[in-house]
């Protein structure tokens, strides 16, 4: 990140060295995703229902943070409006599920349809913002997307009749299939819904990042003039990046709404948008693996703050104030410290650690494979 405009003798837009592997990228990503899916499956039986639910929430956040990583880390566009895009996906899935239920359709198999519609609607909204955003740079873009983040939740009150104001909407969802048995915890089923969607999203994004488009993103980020000279249509590339990341955010928001079984403007305010930025920066800008770390932090930190305030014996009011605000304070100060001290974030630190270990033991390079980069 700090290197974006720094060490710029216009870098040629080439792939990062692919190493000795010759397996096609798509197959490799699919294999990794399959292993991850199996791991989640096994894990879902080991964890109690609450942890299952938390993991499902992580999966929902992963979609949004991964999308934002592609946009900010790879294409160099900072969006503060992704919380609002998540809200668009969430409200769409709520309206869609209601429409289905009103027609008497309640099968769980229809959920993917609603999710698909949510992604489509978010793509449309993302395209509108993205076209405007493509003409803007740095703080201007941040300001515009900040306006989106503040205004979109507020407009839920404006369109009171459709969106039910501050109250929000419920998201009717089908129960887990009866074939799984009556003792099957619903939270595990939620994880089974959310994790495949997140993995699919990650595979698609990882592939995009390694494709021609991904190279164009990086070229635009590093030097717009050089990218233009190389024949890249800068504005179009930026719009594509924005639309792709909007789609991912929409999916994430829709999943979040399905998990919570409700959606309200309060859940998608400016703070969520800032949290997402925070998550991708702390995770490590420009690395999809970093987006996963960021999503984990988003879910784990409030939980951690809760445990901390439980440990301290405090008056109930103080405890409530601390519990709500401690994660915010931690996130805020972490963000400042990370930006000043270690712009690579968690994933950057891990990569450095991995490289250092490999250097120390050059004879066993396979013992410390690099974390999946980009």
């Amino acid at each position, binding site marked *: *990140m*700090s290197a*974006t*405009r*720094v060490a710029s003798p216009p870098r040629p837009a080439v792939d990062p060295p692919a190493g000795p592997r010759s397996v096609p990228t798509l197959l490799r990503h699919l294999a990794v995703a399959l292993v991850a899916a199996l791991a989640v499956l096994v894990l879902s039986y080991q964890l109690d229902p609450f942890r299952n639910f938390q993991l499902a929430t992580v999966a929902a956040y992963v979609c949004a943070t991964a999308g934002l990583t592609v946009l*900010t880390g790879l294409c*160099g566009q*900072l969006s*503060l409006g992704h919380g609002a895009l998540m809200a668009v996906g969430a409200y769409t899935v709520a309206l869609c599920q209601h429409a289905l239920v009103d027609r008497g359709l309640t099968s769980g198999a229809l959920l993917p349809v609603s999710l698909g519609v949510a992604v489509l609607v978010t793509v449309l909204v993302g395209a509108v913002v993205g076209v*405007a955003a493509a*003409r*803007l*740079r*740095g*703080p*201007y873009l*941040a*300001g*515009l997307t*900040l*306006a*989106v983040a*503040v*205004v979109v939740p*507020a*407009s839920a*009150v*404006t369109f009171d009749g459709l969106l039910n104001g501050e109250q929000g909407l419920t998201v009717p969802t089908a129960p887990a299939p009866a074939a799984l048995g009556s003792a099957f915890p619903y939270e595990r089923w939620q994880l089974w819904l959310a994790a495949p969607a997140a993995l699919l999203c990650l595979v698609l994004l990882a592939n995009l990042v390694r494709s021609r488009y991904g190279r164009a993103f990086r070229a635009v980020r590093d030097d*717009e*003039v050089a990218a233009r000279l190389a024949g890249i249509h800068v504005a179009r590339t930026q719009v594509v990046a924005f639309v792709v990341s909007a789609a991912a955010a929409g999916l994430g928001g829709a999943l979040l709404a399905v998990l919570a079984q409700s959606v309200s403007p309060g859940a998608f*305010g*400016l*703070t969520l948008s*800032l949290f997402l*930025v*925070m998550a991708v*920066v702390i995770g490590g800008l420009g690395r999809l693996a970093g987006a996963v770390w960021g999503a984990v932090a988003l879910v784990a930190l409030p939980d951690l703050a809760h445990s901390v305030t439980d440990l301290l014996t405090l008056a109930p*009011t103080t405890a409530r*104030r*601390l519990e*709500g*605000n*401690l*994660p*915010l*304070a931690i*996130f*805020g*100060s*972490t*963000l*400042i410290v990370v*930006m*000043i001290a270690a*712009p690579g974030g968690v994933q950057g630190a891990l990569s450095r650690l991995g490289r250092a270990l490999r250097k120390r033991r050059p004879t066993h390079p396979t013992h410390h494979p690099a974390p999946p980069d980009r």
Partner: protein
Amino acid sequence: MDRFLFLTLDGLSRGAVHAAFALALVLIWRAGRIVNFAQGAMAVAAAYVAYAVTAATGSYWAGFVAALVAGVLLGALVDVAVMRLVDHRSPLNPVIVALGLVLLIQAVLGMIHGNEYLPVQAPFSRTALTAGGLAVLSPYDLFVLATVGVVGATLVWIFTRTAVGLRMRAAAFAPEVSRLLGVDVAGMRTLGWALASGVGALAGMLVVPTELGLHPHAMDLVFVTAFTAAVVGGLDSPPGAVVGGLGVGLLLSYVSGYAGGDLIPLAVLALLLAVMLLRPGGLFAPVNARRV
């Protein structure tokens, strides 16, 4: 017609606050090429200081002065303790750090004062005076307009008539040359932050009584509106910020008066989009001011 006159005057009074806030943004932009996204949160922090001081002393004016002092000190502190350490080579870095400050400040305020809305009294009546049967400005509106006018005039005086103002402008526009000529560039930037944050705190003090009350998020929408005003003016020009602020105030007053207050956020977004698409350099920038 009466209604139009009332809405116009009301819009000018609202716009004055946004102009002051936009002015704060422009000051920092000129001092260090940073849009201070933490401006709103910093102003809220100053307003909380005022709230505490007023509660302790029983005097609105003691709180008012305390807010200004707190704003100036907070601005200087943010520059010295945080912004100076940030790598400014990518324009995104200071923006992200400012966002971290927003979360941190709002969280600390919430921890100290709670996340409820605290009622804040205005120092003057907010009922409109009538002149010849027409409802015109309230005493509070007059106070707002006068304060913003005094601040604007003072800033103009500082920047055009004093040696410090000259050094600040030099440090902003030609840092290297200024340094060679013996100007403390970093110090001037800190001074710019302090001034801007003081003006922001003032704007916060003026706007909080007209909103629901004091709340860690009280300035979120005000920040967006003021940013819009600053962009309308071009981010680089203090007169542009004032005109932009007044224009945005008028627009919002007409929208809420004729169409409904709920539409204000959407109107702000529409205006921001329109300005950025049609004249991204703002109304006061020469056409070729920004390229590529």
